[in-house]
């Protein structure tokens, strides 16, 4: 941690070239992604993609006759700084919308400020669910639009009966694994056949854990690994898998936090056949995706850069927001929120994404196998699945639902028919 940065106050403002003949008003778009610290590896790309989308929109004539301006700040992978900069973006820079955050901890740090000041944020990363804030639209996957279908694939297609849930020790893996454990028990998996392990961020000593998982194979059942390992630690994990010669046939690994960007630093030739589940893969063969990739390469000036799922999430979220603002005729948060419900926008992988009244998207779920070139072979693509804010598999959330349109509540108890609370858990 970097103590002084805790107090960072001012914002780096990126003024973009003015589009053609725009009125003298600006609509500000806050971009809250870490540009330094441990998460910069993933988040810097999202800052770039936002700058690209804003530029494209200005070239297309701006929004409501106004020019868009991206206000970029650097929360430096420091959770308290996320909350501080959110307050600054809303009260000092007066942005109309924020696109930002990657880790769930960062999102949880931002939530109280957003709800206090009635801000609007688009969160682009797959996450653990169990949340539906009035002020956040979740454009990444909820567990039922990523983890559960992947587990179903393990159960049905690969015949896995014994599960190793390996994760980095923070909220996303913890909650996701709690949901998956409940789901697996429901599916008739013996509790003894579920091995759960958590490691710290940046863990590098994987040999014992990998051996333990291999040893599970002696139990007589097909073993599969569900990895929620995040960030740098994946390098050591996959290196150890390759070193111990683990074949994806004998021990398939499905990862929820490993995409094209993370694989770009690895030698994937020894990882061929292992899996990842997302709502988007760069290898999707559609026209919209080709255009997006071409635009990205042109913007970033590097043909070798990859695209990934959170980038598509920002692409969909930004375009939905633009359409909602145009529909509402204003950037007022409450008006835009209402216009967001039911917004549709085509996915890059085909089909339509729909924003549901629970602030989660309906999107197709894709499962890909790692190829030697670091891309994924899409081996399964479902119809659009509606994201669930609350998991029905956990006892404490089984009766909860979220519907901001009809019920005006993000945490509604269907049994007692009361709104448990209007704000979120932090």
């Amino acid at each position: 941690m970097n103590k002084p940065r805790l107090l960072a106050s001012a914002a780096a403002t990126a003024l973009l070239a003015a589009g053609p003949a725009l009125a003298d008003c600006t609509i500000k778009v806050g971009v809250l992604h870490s540009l330094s610290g441990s998460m910069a590896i993933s988040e810097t790309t999202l800052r770039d993609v936002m700058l690209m989308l804003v530029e494209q929109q200005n070239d297309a004539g701006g929004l409501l006759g106004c020019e868009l301006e991206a206000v970029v700040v650097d929360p430096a992978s420091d959770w308290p700084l996320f909350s501080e900069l959110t307050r600054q973006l809303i009260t000092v820079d007066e942005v109309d919308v924020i696109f930002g955050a990657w880790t769930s901890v960062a999102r949880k740090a931002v939530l109280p400020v957003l709800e206090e000041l009635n801000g609007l944020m688009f969160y682009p990363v797959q996450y653990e669910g169990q949340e539906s804030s009035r002020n956040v639209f979740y454009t990444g996957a909820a567990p039922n639009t990523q983890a559960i279908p992947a587990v179903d694939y393990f159960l049905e297609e690969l015949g896995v009966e014994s599960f190793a849930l390996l994760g980095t020790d923070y909220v996303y893996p913890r909650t996701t694994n709690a949901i998956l454990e409940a789901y697996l028990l429901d599916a008739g998996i013996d509790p003894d056949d579920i091995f759960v392990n958590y490691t710290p961020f940046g863990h590098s000593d994987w040999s014992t854990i990998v051996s333990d998982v291999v040893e599970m194979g002696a139990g007589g059942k097909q073993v599969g690994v569900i990895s929620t390992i995040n960030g740098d630690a994946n390098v050591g994990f996959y290196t150890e898998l390759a070193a111990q010669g683990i074949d994806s046939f004998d021990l398939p690994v499905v990862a929820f936090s490993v995409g094209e960007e993370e694989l770009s630093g690895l030698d994937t030739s020894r990882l061929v056949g292992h899996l990842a589940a997302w709502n988007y893969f760069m290898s999707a063969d559609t026209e919209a995706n080709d255009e997006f990739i071409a635009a990205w390469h042109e913007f970033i000036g590097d043909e070798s850069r990859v695209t990934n799922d959170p980038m598509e999430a920002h692409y969909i979220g930004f375009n939905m927001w633009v359409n909602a603002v145009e529909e509402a005729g204003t950037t007022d948060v409450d008006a835009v929120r209402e216009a967001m419900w039911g917004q549709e926008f085509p996915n890059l992988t085909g089909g339509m994404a729909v924003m549901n009244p629970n602030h989660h998207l309906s999107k197709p779920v894709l499962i890909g196998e790692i190829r030697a070139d670091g891309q994924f072979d899409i081996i399964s693509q479902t119809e659009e699945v509606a994201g669930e804010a609350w998991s029905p598999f956990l006892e404490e959330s089984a009766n909860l639902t979220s519907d901001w349109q009809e019920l005006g509540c993000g945490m509604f108890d269907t049994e007692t028919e009361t709104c448990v609370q209007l704000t979120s858990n932090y």
Partner: protein
Amino acid sequence: MEMSRRTAAPVKRRHLLQDNPSVLWFMGLLGLFTLGVTVLSEGFGIGLISTNLVKILGMTLCLCLIAIAMDVVWGYCGILSLGHFAFFGLGGYAIGMWLMYARTEIVIRESLAGSTIPPTEREVSEAVASQIFSVVGSNELPLIWSFAGSLPFQLAMVVLVPGLLALVFGWLAFRSRVTGVYLSILTQAMTLALSLYLFQNDTGLRGNNGLSGLQNIPGALHVPQSVISVWFFWASAFALGAGYLLFAWVVSGKFGSVIRAIRDNEARVRFLGYNVEGYKLFVFTLTAVISGIAGALYYPQAGIINPAEIAPIASIYLAVWVAIGGRGRLYGAVIGAALVSLLSSWLTGGGAPNIDLGFYRIIWTDWWLVMLGLGFVLVTLFFPKGIGGLFDYLVRKQ
């Protein structure tokens, strides 16, 4: 000033303020500053200073408070503790538990109030637990949260937990005569162990997520943050003033002479018959308690606390602030902490204009830490007395 202090102790006990003229100056400036911020704030004044900045200034005051504690333990007593941020964090956790529990309980009771049958206590505490701990995949209230709903209990914990940890750790370490760099490494190991411990979810303090939403004060949930931020600013200013007074009193007089003597030659003080370990333990524990209080005021303003806050590097930065400000002078620690932390945030926050040299663009975000690091080396090599030494020089000239 150095002179007056050296001659004062043996002759006769003089008044505290006579002994430390800086105290009056400091109190006056702090009072003026507090008044100024209040008048300019959004909550109580003309709104020239944003709520955000009020919070930053309030947090800086808390950092100044722990910096003077660090100065007493290191600059006066010669114990280079690289673990005082652990006490800071523990204070924050203790108050954070109450803030989180009490706020959640209010929300839960409100939502259950409408049900046909009143909730049992167990149902309330289960609902609270499930709200707080669902992020770590659990819904049970850990044992250490048993009294989290009680403000007096958690306030007591703010003082007792850091105090007891310092007492036990200090007793073990000083008893074994661990000194110098060994002690520094040991304190560093302590804060490392604590942060690793808190990183675990089994600890019951939400692991890596830490405690969040701390800016919402139970019982004042509808008071706007612009007002709450000023309240906390006042509290922080008061705590810093009181802490300054307390430490000025501690380091003056005979007690102060003894601890300075321990710093300069521990063995000689021991041979003179003083209980060196007792003195050290007292200073170590007292500063730990003050650090805990500083943390308890800091984190409600920051809004979130997590184990990364007490990683070893934070405590090393603390030593850096004190060294740059000037060891052995309380105001030096305040200057160092305020200057370095505010400058860091200004430069790394992107507020400072980047310098274009034509062939290379100096981006402060990238180069500030390099400069801080090298600047710190220069201070250590050439200005061991830090910025405070500059003041001494000016004062003596007059």
